[in-house]
């Protein structure tokens, strides 16, 4: 009897492994398709049947970073020979790189949008995690009247739909000239992430034994010294995990960026879809832009894998 159970169990286990592998492949297929399209020549991006095996190219990335125009006539052999290797890749695709009168290569809109994303995400993360760490310590160690209500208030600000907040913010920003500026977005993302950072950091702070600081206080440290020299080093892992979460949220944000920026401070999420105009879009260029944009998040997800559960449940589930 027992042997029968284990053998059915073993075959069930095998079935589960096969199913899990198939499901993982289905889940990763769209991401694989982005990555592979980013290295395809344009004519292989939209073929039937889909092209799976091909000679990878770097031309989508060259096109992503430069302004291009259609070639009316094929380049002369001299032009072709004079061009640097990456420009030849563009020639091969039937286009040429736009240059200024003095021959300088004209950049596309992508690099500046990518930089904007970096500036806004990093600054807002530093602010949100910095303030959140102090506040979490305050809630964790001191008696605060109406603590539950205050924490609910803090969390509820994060749950507001972006479009709801964006309408009055847009009007206020217009009045003070913060529309389409880095600071405008940084303030919004800081406010958005601050509540998350307080909730998550409070969980991490609660885990640091109070006795550590009490011992330091007995030894003559002031409360501030104890906080900076004892508590902060203990909380380092928590701070790092919170920071990565805040960075990813700000990096991925779309609705605020769409409404509050249009050119100077525009981040990558509203820019990348705006490249798909009417007509046939060059999916290899979009895939290349998407690939570069997703890469940091994919790396961070691996670094963060043991804290994902905690972050996603606002610190409620620790394990």
């Amino acid at each position, binding site marked *: 009897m027992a042997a029968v159970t284990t053998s059915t169990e073993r075959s069930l286990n095998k079935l589960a492994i096969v199913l899990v592998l198939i499901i993982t492949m289905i889940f990763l297929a769209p991401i694989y398709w982005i990555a592979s399209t980013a290295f395809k020549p344009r004519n292989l991006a939209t073929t039937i049947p889909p092209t799976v095996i091909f000679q990878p190219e770097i031309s989508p990335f060259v096109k992503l970073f430069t302004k291009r125009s259609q070639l009316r006539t094929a380049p002369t052999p001299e032009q072709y020979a004079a061009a640097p290797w990456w420009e030849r890749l563009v020639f091969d695709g039937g286009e040429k790189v736009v240059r200024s009168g003095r021959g300088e290569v004209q950049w596309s809109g992508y690099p500046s949008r990518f930089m904007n994303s970096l500036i806004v995400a990093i600054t807002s993360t530093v602010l949100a995690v910095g303030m959140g760490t102090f506040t979490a310590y305050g809630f964790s160690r001191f008696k605060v009247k109406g603590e539950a209500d205050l924490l609910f208030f*803090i969390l509820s600000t994060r749950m507001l739909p972006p479009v709801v907040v964006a309408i009055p913010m847009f009007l206020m920003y217009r009045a003070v000239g913060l529309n389409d500026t880095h600071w405008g977005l940084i303030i919004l993302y800081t406010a958005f992430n601050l509540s998350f950072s307080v909730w998550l950091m409070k969980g991490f702070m609660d885990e640091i034994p109070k006795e550590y600081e009490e011992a330091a206080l007995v030894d003559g440290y002031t409360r501030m010294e104890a906080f900076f020299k004892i508590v902060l080093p203990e909380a380092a892992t928590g701070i790092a995990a919170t920071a990565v979460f805040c960075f990813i949220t700000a990096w991925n944000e779309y609705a605020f960026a769409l409404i509050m920026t249009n050119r100077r401070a525009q981040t990558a999420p509203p820019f990348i879809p705006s490249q798909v105009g009417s007509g046939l879009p060059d999916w290899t260029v979009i895939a290349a832009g998407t690939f570069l944009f997703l890469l940091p998040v994919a790396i961070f997800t691996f670094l963060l894998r043991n804290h994902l559960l905690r972050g996603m449940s606002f610190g*409620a589930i620790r394990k």
Partner: protein
Amino acid sequence: MATAVMTTLDPNSRSAARGMSDLTIRNLFIIPTIVFLIVFNIFPLIYSLGYSFTDFRASSPAAANFVGLQNYRELLNDPFIWSNFAITAKYVIVSVVGQVIVGFGVALLLNRDIPLKGLLTTLLLLPMMLSMAVVGLFWKLLYDPSFGIINYTLGLGSFEWLSNPDMALYAVAITDIWMWSPFVMLLSLAGLSAVPKHLYEAAAIDRAGSFYTFFRITLPLVAPILMIAVIFRTMEAFKTFDLAYILTSQPTTEVISIRLYKMAFQEWQTGRSCALAYIVLIMILAITNIYVKYLNKVKER
């Protein structure tokens, strides 16, 4: 609000005599955050509450006229707004049910001895970390009727997904299920691994069937954590904007956030959109309240 809170001093404070008192430090640590959130979240909402009683249009220099409850009355009597809510409700149900089935199902499969379980779990979690807008855009290529890989793989010929009014909302929901089932899976796995092993052993000794074991042991013990996932995803699906806005422009996919966005930033009916924002806001706060209750409940276990 902030000042009313800061009235009690911890009398046992040891360091009160040296350096800054605990009271000062507590206030220094907490008050800036509260003030920041009030200034950048609550104040704008008060500002827009004011506008919701006017006929203000941000695109015109004309001054705002007070119209009382007219905006609210008109919105609540507008059948088109109700159809936007109905579309949102349909979207929430399809996508959350889909996520629970897929997410909980995969969690059940993963909740056993599987080689490379950690790596597989991390890979499965990847979609939910990515940008909805940017990855969502790429799904346009996947759904393309003539050269998308979805139609090719499923052998659907040139089936229309996003340009088909009957299918578009489901297509958006499928993408959402792809992105967010991992979230339900992650929470379910936590719940499943917390079920004490001895309960299963006892059930096995009693010769309980797997059906009985699942419904009497597994499900009740995982339910609270699964509930958190369901409430959180319901709230997020209710607010959804990015995916539907990027993938299609069908009237059948105009969820309430998109209606709100168009009313505010394309039709420039600022006053009216503020009123609609308030109607949405009250609904969200109600769901948030339930959510936080569950969070605290699970935390106390």
